[in-house]
């Protein structure tokens, strides 16, 4: 029996245990609490980026999407977000296609793209409160300040973000991770422009999220280790 199979049986046994002891909350958790991508195909213009892509992501799992520039990493993530329609295949969240779920799915996922989605004219604090508000969470000033300070922005919370450096602006955007209760994080190159300290912080945040039974799917060209979780990888070629 290979390690993977063993892992599967262990997971099954553990989940069964959970069902027996806490039936109400766990049956749906066991069966559907996951992202399932089946036979996905995507193209940009006439160019086919990938096809026949299938994978599942379970609670507590992290997956890195790997591939050369232009291999379709961002397109895959954007398709997972529902921005782009796949040519073929389906994306299923908790047993239902995301096309039918729409807003219910968005309440449970968080996407951080190449663009920071922060306004130059607003302060870091205002930016964080507004972006949390857009994702349906009212963040009071104390919570927002705590999140920004954890991201290493102490003393810069009330400065307009146009005076911040590229890395600091990325930190403001990443502070959303702290102000979110989403189960699925979709992160496109979260480490761009970040220094060593910030990369370590992100690794910490990912580990915490996975420990809470969250799911992460991300791309990066930098090495990234997450303590206590097996890094799955998906290669696009």
């Amino acid at each position, binding site marked *: 029996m290979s390690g993977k199979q063993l892992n599967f049986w262990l997971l099954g046994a553990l989940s069964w245990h959970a069902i027996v002891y806490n039936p109400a909350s766990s049956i749906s958790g066991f069966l559907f609490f996951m992202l399932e991508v089946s036979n996905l195909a995507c193209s940009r213009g006439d160019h086919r980026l990938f096809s026949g892509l299938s994978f599942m992501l379970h609670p507590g799992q992290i997956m890195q999407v790997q591939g050369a520039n232009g291999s379709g990493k961002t397109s895959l993530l954007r398709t997972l977000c529902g921005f782009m329609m796949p040519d073929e295949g389906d994306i299923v969240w908790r047993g239902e296609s995301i096309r039918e779920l729409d807003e219910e799915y968005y309440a449970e996922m968080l996407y951080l793209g190449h*663009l920071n989605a922060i306004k130059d004219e607003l302060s870091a604090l205002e930016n964080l409160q507004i972006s949390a508000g857009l994702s349906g969470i009212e963040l009071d000033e104390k919570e927002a300040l705590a999140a920004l300070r954890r991201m290493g922005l102490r003393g810069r919370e009330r400065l307009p973000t146009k005076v911040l450096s590229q890395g600091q602006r990325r930190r403001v955007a990443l502070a959303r991770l702290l102000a979110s209760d989403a189960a699925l994080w979709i992160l496109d190159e979260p480490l761009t422009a970040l220094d060593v300290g910030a990369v370590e912080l992100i690794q910490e945040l990912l580990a915490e999220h996975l420990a809470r039974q969250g799911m992460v799917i991300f791309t990066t060209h930098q090495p990234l280790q997450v303590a206590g979780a097996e890094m799955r990888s998906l290669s696009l070629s």
Partner: protein
Amino acid sequence: MKKSTLLGLLVLVIRRDLVLAMRRRADVLTTLIFFVMVVSLFPLGVGPEMSMLRKMAPGVLWVAALLSSMLSLGRLFSADYLDGTLEQMMLAPQSLSMLVLGKMTAHWMVSGLPLVLMAPVLGLQFDMPVQALGVLIIGLLLGTPVLSMVGAIGAALTLGLRGGGVLLSLLVLPLCIPVLIFGTGAVEAVSTGLSVASHLSLLGALLVLALVFTPWVTAQALRISME
């Protein structure tokens, strides 16, 4: 962490756009100054003959309002599109139509409302009687939100296109003709002693129709533009 309500979200978007407009005041002022200048050019160009000015005043004011609202439409979604905020709005767990309605409201408050407030002052240049000025203001109050809302559809469709501004005007201006007709019609009616009720109710009907349909249509157009 608290969950925000739909109304809370609407207020959040409006407040955000108003704060942004206050910090980028030049954008707001250019629209208003454009409106004032276009309207003021007519008495200079046509000459100071009172009866003629009085006759053309409603048309001039309405056309100028239409043109200056076109000026600011391009900015409605473009900044959010370029910095990625629009992506996040599409991923909001509430309906995108509600967010769009918030943006439309803020846009009207920033670019439509100042025109409404400025119009009576400019109307005096044309020797408009007080009664006509009143009807003009009511007409503009009902009509300029329609311009913002119909314009938002065009702004969403031309998002990210190069030279989208001209295309936007070509798309939106024809759709605004009914507003222009009823808006000027109301002022002409009051000048000739007729009832203005029919014109104003038609404007009101246009406003209600726009309120119901344009946020949804704009949201769909945004989804198409983002693909």
